């Protein structure tokens, strides 16, 4: 019996040790000691806004590197702000809450006409063009719609009434083909989001949709874009534009413009990363006259720019 006692204690120890839980050390914290906290106001900075055609996070991820680059290059504090809608963007610019606006040519024309915005640079799209166009899409299996004429009497979803590639260019294209707004069964806006237009058409909620060229690639990792067919493309118009507030001193504008124009997609690795995040490959200088075709188009389709 004495020889078996150690085995019994070993067994007992196993049980005792196994029964011990890992005792966690707790940090003593008082929830009773309280203070009223006030938000520390943000430091003054130049505000940079991207027309909200995508989600805020998408906007942030595309442009925060560029914003940081511009801030570093100019030595100026620059902060990205996020308007919720196109109108919000226009209003905030009008209120002085946006110093640098990156928008489509249609919004720019509105900003220029209403609040004196001035074009600073234009971007060069990934296809190497400084212009872009709109596209009219439908479900690939919708055999009723194959040409621009087939769009008559259908349900049309567009990005926003202020959208250039997503509404204005296609509307001009329809007008050129003799189709007026009244000829559609309905015209619905997707809140400024290109993705919503594509997804609305794909879901069958609308017969046709209008998007800016290149938007399909944004959702290609979310849906099978082969299920979408392009009915027609509009003519090209001047592309997206950087404008500045009329209250912004000219030398600061110049610094910013220079910084933008200095970005070298081809040869600078860091610049390339910045530009790839922003989904374009460079800048060209721009001024207000570049956007007269847009003004004409607006007039043609009967949209008010002021």
């Amino acid at each position, binding site marked *: *019996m004495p020889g078996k006692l150690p085995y019994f204690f070993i067994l007992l120890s196993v*049980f005792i040790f*196994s*029964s*011990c*839980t*890992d005792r*966690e*050390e*707790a*940090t*003593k*914290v*008082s*929830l*009773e*000691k*309280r*203070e*009223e*906290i006030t*938000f*520390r106001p943000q430091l003054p900075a130049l505000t940079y806004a991207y027309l909200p055609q995508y*989600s*805020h*996070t998408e*906007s*942030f*991820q595309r442009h*925060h590197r560029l914003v940081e680059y511009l801030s570093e290059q100019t030595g100026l504090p620059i902060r*990205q702000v*996020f308007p*919720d809608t196109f109108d919000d963007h226009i209003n905030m610019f009008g209120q002085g809450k946006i110093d640098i606006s990156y928008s489509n040519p249609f919004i720019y024309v509105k900003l220029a006409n209403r609040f004196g915005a001035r074009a600073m640079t234009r971007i060069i799209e990934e296809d190497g063009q400084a212009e872009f166009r709109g596209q009219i899409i439908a479900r690939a299996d919708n055999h009723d719609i194959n040409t621009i004429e087939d769009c008559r009497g259908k349900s049309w979803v567009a990005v926003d009434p202020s959208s250039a590639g997503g509404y204005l260019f296609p509307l001009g294209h329809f007008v050129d083909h003799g189709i007026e707004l009244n000829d559609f069964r309905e015209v619905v806006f997707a809140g400024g989001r290109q993705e919503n237009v594509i997804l609305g058409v794909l879901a069958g909620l609308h017969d046709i949709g209008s998007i800016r060229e290149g938007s399909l690639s944004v959702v290609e990792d979310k849906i099978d874009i082969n299920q979408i067919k392009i009915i027609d493309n509009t003519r090209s118009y001047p592309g997206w534009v950087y404008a500045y507030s009329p209250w912004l001193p000219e030398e600061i504008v110049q610094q910013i413009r220079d910084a933008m124009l200095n970005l070298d997609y081809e040869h600078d690795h860091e610049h390339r990363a910045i530009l790839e995040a922003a989904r374009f490959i460079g800048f060209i200088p721009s001024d207000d006259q570049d956007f007269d075709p847009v003004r004409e188009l607006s007039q043609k389709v009967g949209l008010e720019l002021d």
Partner: protein
Amino acid sequence: MTRLLPDFLHGLKFRTKITLGVAGMLVFCGLGIGIILSNMSSKALLEEGRKRGMALTSGLAFRMAEPILAMDFLQMKNLIDNVHGQYEDVVYVFLTDASDNILSHTFSGGFPTDLLTVNLDGNETQPVLLSTEQGLIYDFNAKVALGERNLGTVRLGLSRSEMDAQIHRQRLTSLFSTLGVVGLGVLLASWFSRTVTYRLNRLRESAEEVVMGNLDVQAGFNLDQNCWQIMNCQRKECPAYGDVKRRCWYLAGTLCPDCKDREYPYKMDSCRSCPVYKHNFGDEIQDLAEAFDVMAITIKTHIEELTEREKTIARQQGLLKTIMNVTPDFITLQDKDLRYKFASKAFCDYFHLKENEVVGKTDFDIFSGQQADLNYHEDMQILITGQALSKEITFDRPEGRKWLHVIKVPVYDQDESIIGLLLTARDITMLKKYQEQLIQSQKMEDLGRLAGGVAHEINTPLGIILGYAQLLMEDIEDEDLLDDLKIIEKQTKVCRKIVADLLGFSRYSQSATETVDVNESIQEVIKLVEHIFSLNHIKILNDLDRHIPPLTGDKERLKQVWLNMLNNAADAIGQDGAIYIKSKLCAHRQRLVVSIADTGKGIEDENLSKIFDPFFTTKQVGKGTGLGLSVSFGIIKDHGGKISALSPPPVEYLPDDFPRSEHFGPGTVFIIELPLDHDQETDTEDKNGEHCRT
């Protein structure tokens, strides 16, 4: 104290031990496993709680990116409140931006600033356990990140009390489940132990019955189906048919077609494939019980056989012992250590010992040291050499010298090794006496022949001396010379008488053959001496058998014998005594017996064998020559008879009215036997033939 528990356990019943053992194991294992599983599940629950808190925090952080970018405080607040309100165990949620500004929180009445000092690093192991006034709280930290940019931090406090309560509930459930299973296990163990011990008890009771001598037990159970029922067998001559106590495979000589006719267990190989075996074969305990039954029956049979053999052996032992004890020879058996294993009754009686005083002892325990030492060396030599010993030894005993013829032989066992010593000894004292008598007879015959020759040669000169002396007596008138001559004449006559006796002893004298009436010759002698004896107050009694036939012999010489006998008796009595003469016919032995008993001084034992020697006498010098009995011996021998003496005389030689006196000596009786003539009528014998014993 340390022995109390083992003693207590040892004293418990087997059934209780099994139940306690199984219950103990169940409790030990059940609680052990329960504790382990409970801890595992507790850990799992805590881990699950932590993961849930982390998931809530991470999800919230993911949804906070847009509101932070848009600085949409309402949405921030809504998201935070949604989580805080949705889950009761979420104590607090707050959101900070990248500059640690608190953007939104769920506290009312101020913000607990202590929270801003802990769990600031989102990279450290999450969550951090906080001890607060509201109990233990897990504080989770999740970064609101977009790409590599950190937009802020979501912190969420999850109460651990809910997890602890859940763990507690789980432990209670585990405990009660374990107790329930253990309880059920104990019940099953009790039932199991009862099932096992019931059969063991039955086996034990059977064993006790066997110990008490009852071999007709049945520890196994009766079968629901027996072999003849399973096989549909009608072979009633089979030994298994109708036997409900034993399984057929335990029986020899069963008549199954597949059963080899061998005894259990040698036929098991064939039985194991038999359908009866497969149907009736039980577990180990049943097997044990059945084997026990077979063993009991087998033992019973063996015991009966052994009992019968024992009776036979006992009978043989008794017979052998009777033979051993009845035989007058000494028989002993000693082992190789010379310890007595057996001693016959004659041996024990001879040495005045009891059997148990001999068996197991050695000679050193029984005999004197000298005798034992002698025996020891002698016995050891036999044991060593294997040579048997035969010898004659003599003992001086109070009743006289004894002669024994001793034979000692070694005893061999089956492998031819000596395992003991057998001694046989026979009392040859009588044989020795006969030998001595034979030698004596031969000696006396030779002596008689010598004496006869000498006497014959001396007789003539003596006759001449006597003649011339008598002639001289006639011629001489001188009284003195005449007296001298008379002395010469007298002494010469004495010499002639001696010579005549010697001639008679040696049968040298001429004997007449005639028909003799023994009783008449006795009567004549009695008449001759009666008067003389009466002067010495010696009375002569007689009891003469009238049926004695006449025999052929020399009357005068026989009368000489009677006269010698009576004279000897009178000499032995001296004064005042009685002589009893008796004659008796022993027809079946074809002889007559004459006994002459006296009340004299008797004869010493050592002299009894010598009294018939010539010239042997116990009388004073000059009172007798010692030739009377010798001459009588010779006369009786010439008549083909024999003469012997006993002292004191046995009662059968004395009449019932024989005079008794304290002055009388022990007395002697001389017994003379004479053969009858074969042509005599001998069928008239006294029915009381006890006096014919000589």
